[in-house]
């Protein structure tokens, strides 16, 4: 079954209370953040806390990612060594600009895996693309290693470098977001949309999530628990969609058995792409437990 990555909820690794509270919002993934959310002086203590938490707490079916500090900083490599040892199997690589960045992490991961008797390749990577250069290299990044399971877009640094304002219409992000979705699709990995930082504006957030879904993203990075529920509502197939997809799959199965070529469901022609879309919806619905 497809792994759901509708929501990736950030949680600062320096806040132990949040380690055990964040799972109650049931995001698909939690990203424990060692990078931006942690003050320079607390980098080591936050890492220690996180390693202990990962060893002790049961996150059940929530996928755990850790956003490490970039490998070019003094903390990046130690982050990787310690958290992999503690049991983390998904790493978010920030400020990823080239395939080389991914390969560098891959080499380090392979070394750490070997040192700790972990299957080589067990640790997966999500590449955070946050710069114009990264966007243009998105496909190379997404295909740089079989470890890459998703690429995510970060609009804050992207707009800063472009020298434009981040607006609520997100027009300034249109090309980058579309391109990342395309690259992810070609590489067969998930595409995760950027965060919405105005946590008080839930209506604006919902509009952006709706757009992300239409564009083809698999999910969204979230910075507040209240956002999780809204993303799930939008990214989970509706009862109507599920029922229609089931009818399509049923009709296709019947047609195949009877050797009929072209069929129609609800008055509309059903061909292979339609069947595949229906199958994707059913797979999502099962993963989201709205269909057993």
């Amino acid at each position: 079954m497809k792994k759901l990555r509708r929501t990736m909820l950030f949680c600062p690794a320096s806040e132990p209370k949040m380690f055990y509270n964040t799972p109650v919002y049931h995001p698909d993934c939690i990203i424990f953040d060692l990078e931006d959310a942690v003050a320079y002086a607390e980098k080591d203590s936050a890492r220690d806390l996180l390693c202990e938490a990962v060893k002790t707490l049961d996150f059940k079916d929530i996928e755990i990612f850790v956003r490490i500090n970039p490998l070019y900083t003094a903390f990046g490599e130690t982050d990787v060594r310690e958290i992999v040892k503690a049991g983390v199997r998904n790493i978010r690589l920030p400020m990823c600009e080239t395939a080389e960045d991914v390969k560098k992490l891959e080499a380090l991961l392979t070394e750490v895996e070997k040192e700790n008797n972990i299957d080589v390749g067990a640790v997966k990577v999500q590449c955070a693309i946050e710069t114009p250069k990264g966007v243009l290299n998105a496909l190379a990044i997404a295909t740089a290693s079989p470890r890459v399971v998703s690429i995510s877009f970060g609009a804050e640094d992207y707009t800063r470098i472009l020298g434009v304002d981040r607006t609520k219409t997100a027009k300034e992000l249109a090309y980058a977001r579309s391109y990342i979705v395309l690259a992810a699709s070609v590489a067969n990995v998930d595409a995760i949309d950027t965060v919405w930082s105005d946590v008080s504006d839930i209506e604006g957030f919902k509009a952006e999530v709706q757009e992300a879904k239409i564009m083809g993203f698999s999910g969204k990075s979230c910075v507040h628990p209240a956002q999780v529920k809204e993303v799930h509502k939008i990214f989970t197939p509706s009862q109507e969609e599920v029922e229609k997809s089931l009818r399509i799959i049923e009709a296709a199965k019947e047609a195949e058995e009877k050797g009929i070529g072209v069929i129609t469901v609800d008055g509309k022609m059903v061909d292979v792409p339609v069947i595949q879309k229906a199958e994707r919806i059913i797979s999502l619905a099962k993963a989201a437990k709205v269909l057993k």
Partner: protein
Amino acid sequence: MEFVKNKAGRMVPTYIEGIGELKPFNGIFDAEVAGRRHGAINSKVVPTDQKLLGSIREAIEKTGLKDGMTVSFHHHLRNGDYVLMMVMDEIANMGIKDITICSSSLTNAHEGLIEHIKSGVVTGLHTSGLRGNIAKEITTNCILPKPVIFRTHGGRARAIESGEVKIDVAFIAASCCDEMGNMNGKLGKSAFGAMGYPMVDAQYADKVVAITDNLVPYPAYPISIPQYLVDYVVVVEEIGDPSLISAGATRVTQNPLELLIAEYASEVLIQSGLVKEGFSFQAGSGGASLAVAKFLRDYMKENNIVGSFASGGATSYLVELLEEGLFRTLLDTQTFDAKAATSFMRNENHVEMSASMYANPHNKGCVANKLDIMILSATEVDVHYNVNVMTASTGVIMGAQGGHPDTAAGAKLTVVVAPLMRKRIPIVVDEVTTVVTPGETVDVVVTERGIAVNPKNAELLQTLKKTNLPVMTIEELKNLAENFTGKPEKVTFGDKIVGIIEYRDGTVMDVIRNVVK
């Protein structure tokens, strides 16, 4: 001291020196009720008499207050109240001792009482709750010679009406009053809203003194407490700071954890089938509890449901529901914030009620008993569904009974909302430190990680099990909490009883003992 086990399973004394005979709690509606109400004394006021006096001291002198008497106050101004301390300071200056204070509650505004207790001016306290330093001094340093009697809001009205508590002088802060004593809390710079508590005191106290910072031409209107119950009127510069009313207990939450709990709770209410045309609702103070109204609102709108009444403890949340036409009436015994005070001033469907009408179990029918749904907070809940809202896990007093036991007993569905842990301390425990609300009156406990249904509600349990809600047993909830926190250390209590938890019917639910440092 002789102890017996009451129906809540707690060992309670049958007699305490200075307090008298005590009856153990014997079931929520099982206390025997007999006798008549306490009678008010006859008075004579002739046309030339002046009620308006020059000072609080003069009023104290005229009332004949002396050593050993009981004075009463209300806490409608909560943390912003000035009147209780003004009066008690004057009583102390006059050299009067051995006074019992019967206040509807005590807040952080009353910390000055510590000195009056230590000097023997105050020797007895009857209140709904205690917080801050007074509470600490009483629990750990045992500064009060007799235990504090904690009463519910309904229980206080009952005790006064039955004559169990005889108030010698009631001092009543009013934000609007005339020279004859007609008064309200609705108008004036210090307006605080409904006057539910002193409406009872004024009827049964031997002497009644109105204290106001807004003397208006006769007759003051509307009249919450009428002139024929009032002996004297005193004007002071300020009765309090109404901006401090909403501090603390009635904050509006943005905390995502509390919002999640509230969302689960509202789903429980919807699933119970009680949220339907004409239903009634109340939510106690506390972030998650108040936020339930927010989630209920969306459901009521979507389904065109209009409730009959909401009651309280009127907060801005309930006022919004009233203003949007989602409830026909808001019955208000105590107004909790500025928005609710404004609503009370302007909206004729926002109706004042006395504490007796609200929750007295021994009158001819109270509003609490008409409730369909009650949402309550908790400091601790145990595996028997008993709730503590009075003592912290350290054993120190830090809360108030309020209308908690009254509404839990009265409502068809009582839902307790609480986080599973607070600061690494489990909230669901084997046994609560102090029983305030008995488990038999609690139907559901909702936390952010799980929902437990009291097994007495088999039907509701089956309904909820069919939903996606995280339903589990109360023991599973407790274990879940302990998985994170470990088993909490037991508090070391001394053998001195510092507080009596009186149930709404006057029986003893539990006692609070001193904490040994």
